[in-house]
């Protein structure tokens, strides 16, 4: 099992090396190498998952990588490199390699003819390697190493089209913002090591519960938590993710929707024991997640760029996951991560297909695409339905788990907030669909269905978006005797439940959101005369009702949209400004300090003597009997 895990991590690395050093010039071969490696990883990780299903204890093996013996009362520094195979990592491996594999196939069409084709596959392979390495890591140190590597790949891929200044800026921003967050992570890990003398997840999970009540533990948990905040783009570290949409769209699907941003959630789940023993951090996690969910969803309401809508939606869904983890349900968080990976990748790839066909990203300049791009439109709609949480698609089950978990843990406020977000989600997704795919064709907009390389991944993901949620359903549990909650859990396994009331309420809310979107953006689709002729009185009634609804909707939209715009403004001016300001301040300090270097050697000598005089004076004042005597 361990060997399979190592092999599945190394396969993409081998591909990267092959592409970078050998097949760089033959593009088709580069793509081939990347895809074969990803397929190998996929097959191996499915094998791993099957193995873990049979034996949930998994496997753990590690070798000493760096060992510094203990000296005196100081503990030695022991760093190991290891592989931890358990339900959590096996599931995550499947998600990562599956999405990576599909994205690589999709990119065959999407990136065709790009001058950096080979480079693209090299980066993707390197990314897959780092992400898989992160997933199977058995200790914080190793996790951190791969964590950084993942950040580096993201940097390279966001800035892939570096000719665009905006792309280069965005990549830089992503990297730097993440480094700020990683600073907290690193300090936290150092402290953790100082306290427990180990980085190992398994070892820590036995020692941390014993240390309850330690004053350091909350600080450590809070510091380590900052790392996931950055990588999973939670408020206020979320600023990089919307800008990251400058990268090629398949990359957005792979990295900025399905896998890399999930790394933060994964890390929390991995070290859940640490957070679970500090209630304050858990509460903070839940509320930061909830807030991000609401905040990002409301910004998504007013975006016009198709990729930015999806980006904010990703933020919002990640917020959901944090909320789930924060209220103590690791299963719900990971479950949503799994389903979200499928339907968000689907949505991004669908968006990519649209962008590829039309060269346009503004949804208000699209229209009527549904007729020209049937597969894409259907796939996109399925993704949107899944995201909105419509029964029985994937999002329904996982979102319900989260809402239920927050309700059961007594966070009624978060539950209501979650419902609000669900409403907004349904609304903005269908606003997009009605505007871009529905309506009349925009003049001069050329569109065509994409080729099979792009269509097949869409279909696969669409199928998964339909069925993936079922593994968390009570029916699945009844049929096979286990479910997601009893496979990946913290503490005690959770039984799948379907609370009809909450399910009904959230479904209603989602349908309501779609309905509102239809009224506001889709109604134009209906030719009033035809409907009137067909339905006669019913139409008038509906029309009348719609009239009321429209006023209501108008007020509601006013409030909602205004809120969204306000958040948008805060986001760009305040939060962005904070990070940019920090950077600018350090830069300005650097520029000022630089002037000390006047170029005059005697000035330098003067500084040397001044420093010597000050240091000598400071150290010998006591010996000289005070300053003035």
């Amino acid at each position, binding site marked *: 099992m361990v060997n399979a895990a190592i092999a599945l991590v190394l396969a993409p690395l081998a591909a990267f090396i092959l592409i970078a050093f050998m097949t760089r010039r033959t593009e088709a071969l580069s793509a081939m190498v990347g895809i074969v490696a990803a397929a190998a990883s996929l097959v191996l990780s499915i094998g791993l998952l099957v193995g873990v299903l049979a034996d949930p204890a998994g496997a753990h093996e590690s070798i000493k990588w760096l060992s510094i013996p203990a000296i005196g009362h100081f503990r030695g520094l022991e760093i190991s490199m290891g592989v931890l195979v358990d339900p959590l990592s096996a599931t995550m491996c499947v998600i990562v390699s599956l999405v990576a594999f599909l994205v690589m196939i999709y990119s065959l069409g999407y990136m065709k003819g790009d001058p950096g084709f080979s480079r693209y596959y090299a980066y993707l392979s390197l990314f897959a390697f780092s992400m898989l390495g992160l997933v199977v890591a058995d200790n914080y140190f190793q996790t951190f190493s791969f964590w950084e590597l993942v950040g580096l790949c993201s940097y390279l891929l966001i800035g892939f089209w570096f000719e665009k200044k905006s792309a280069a800026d965005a990549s830089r921003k992503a990297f730097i913002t993440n480094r700020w967050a990683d600073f907290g992570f690193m300090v936290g890990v150092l402290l953790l090591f100082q306290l427990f003398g180990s980085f190992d997840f398994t070892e820590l999970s036995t020692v941390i519960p014993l240390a309850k009540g330690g004053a350091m533990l909350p600080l450590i948990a809070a510091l380590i938590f900052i790392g996931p905040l950055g990588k999973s783009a939670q408020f206020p570290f979320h600023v990089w993710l919307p800008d990251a949409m400058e990268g090629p769209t398949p990359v957005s699907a792979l990295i900025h929707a399905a896998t890399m941003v999930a790394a933060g959630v994964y890390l929390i789940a991995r070290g859940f024991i640490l957070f679970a023993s500090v209630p304050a951090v858990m509460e903070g996690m839940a509320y930061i997640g909830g807030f991000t969910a609401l905040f990002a969803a409301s910004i998504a309401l007013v975006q016009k760029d198709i990729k930015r809508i999806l980006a904010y939606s990703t933020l919002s869904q990640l917020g959901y996951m944090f909320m789930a983890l924060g209220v103590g349900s690791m299963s719900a968080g990971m479950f949503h991560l799994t389903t979200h990976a499928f339907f968000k990748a689907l949505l991004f790839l669908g968006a990519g297909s649209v962008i590829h066909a039309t060269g346009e990203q503004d949804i208000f300049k699209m229209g009527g695409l549904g007729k020209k791009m049937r597969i894409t439109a259907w796939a996109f709609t399925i993704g949107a339905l899944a995201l909105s949480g419509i029964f029985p698609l994937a999002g329904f089950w996982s979102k319900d788990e989260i809402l239920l978990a927050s309700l059961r843990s007594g966070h009624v406020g978060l539950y209501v907030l979650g419902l609000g977000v669900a409403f907004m989600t349904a609304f903005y997704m269908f606003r997009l669909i009605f505007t871009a795919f529905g309506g009349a064709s925009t003049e001069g907009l050329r569109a065509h269905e994409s080729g099979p390389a792009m269509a097949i991944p869409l279909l696969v993901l669409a199928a998964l978006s339909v069925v993936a949620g079922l593994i968390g359903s009570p029916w699945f549990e009844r049929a096979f005797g286990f479910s997601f909650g009893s496979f990946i859990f913290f503490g005690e396994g959770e039984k799948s439940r379907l609370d009809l009331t909450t399910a009904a309420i959230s479904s209603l809310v989602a349908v309501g959101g779609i309905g509102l979107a239809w009224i506001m953006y889709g109604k134009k689709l209906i030719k009033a005369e035809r409907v009137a002729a067909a339905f006669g009185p019913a139409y008038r009634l509906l029309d009348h009702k719609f009239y009321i609804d429209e006023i209501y909707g108008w007020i509601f939209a006013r409030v909602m949209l205004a809120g969204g715009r306000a958040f948008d403004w805060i986001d760009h001016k305040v939060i962005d400004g904070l990070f940019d300001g920090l950077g600018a301040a350090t830069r300005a300090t650097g520029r000022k300090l630089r002037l000390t270097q006047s170029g005059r050697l*005697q000035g330098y000598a003067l500084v040397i003597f001044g420093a010597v005089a000050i240091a000598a004076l400071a150290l010998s004042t006591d010996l*000289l*009997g005070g300053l003035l005597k």
Partner: protein
Amino acid sequence: MESFLFYAFAALVVISALAMILSRNLVHSALYMAAAFLGMAFVYLLLRADYIAVVQILVYVGAISILFVFGIMLTKRDRMDGSNGFNRYGIIAGLVGLALFALLARAVTVAGASRAAPPADVPQAPAGGSAVAISNLFLGQLALPLEASALLLLAALAGAVVIGKGREKSKC
């Protein structure tokens, strides 16, 4: 008597040194420097360091001062007045120098108070002055630094030749 001599030589050294840095004529500065070096040789004699005193006169007064004068002659062919002005750091440098001196002097007096009195006028070295003892050191426990410094002189010589050699086309 010894005190008187010390103060006389010290005054010679300090006044020459001050004149050296205060003079605005580079050639005068060089001459004051030679005078200060000479004064130092006398101070060394007071310390019964006859070998060092001779070295001081031969190397410092004889060689290094001359080297300086050559340097001046090669780089200044016009008038010498005002050839040796102060730069913008004059005042700050003076203050830092004074502060450093105050600190050192204070440290010396505090430390010296606890130090044993100097040995009576017993010459350290046997007959032949300090030269014998020093050369014994050179050929004994200091042999390695001696060899290293021979290499150093060779390297410096080669280096000075490389730097000073001919003039290449300048594109400064």
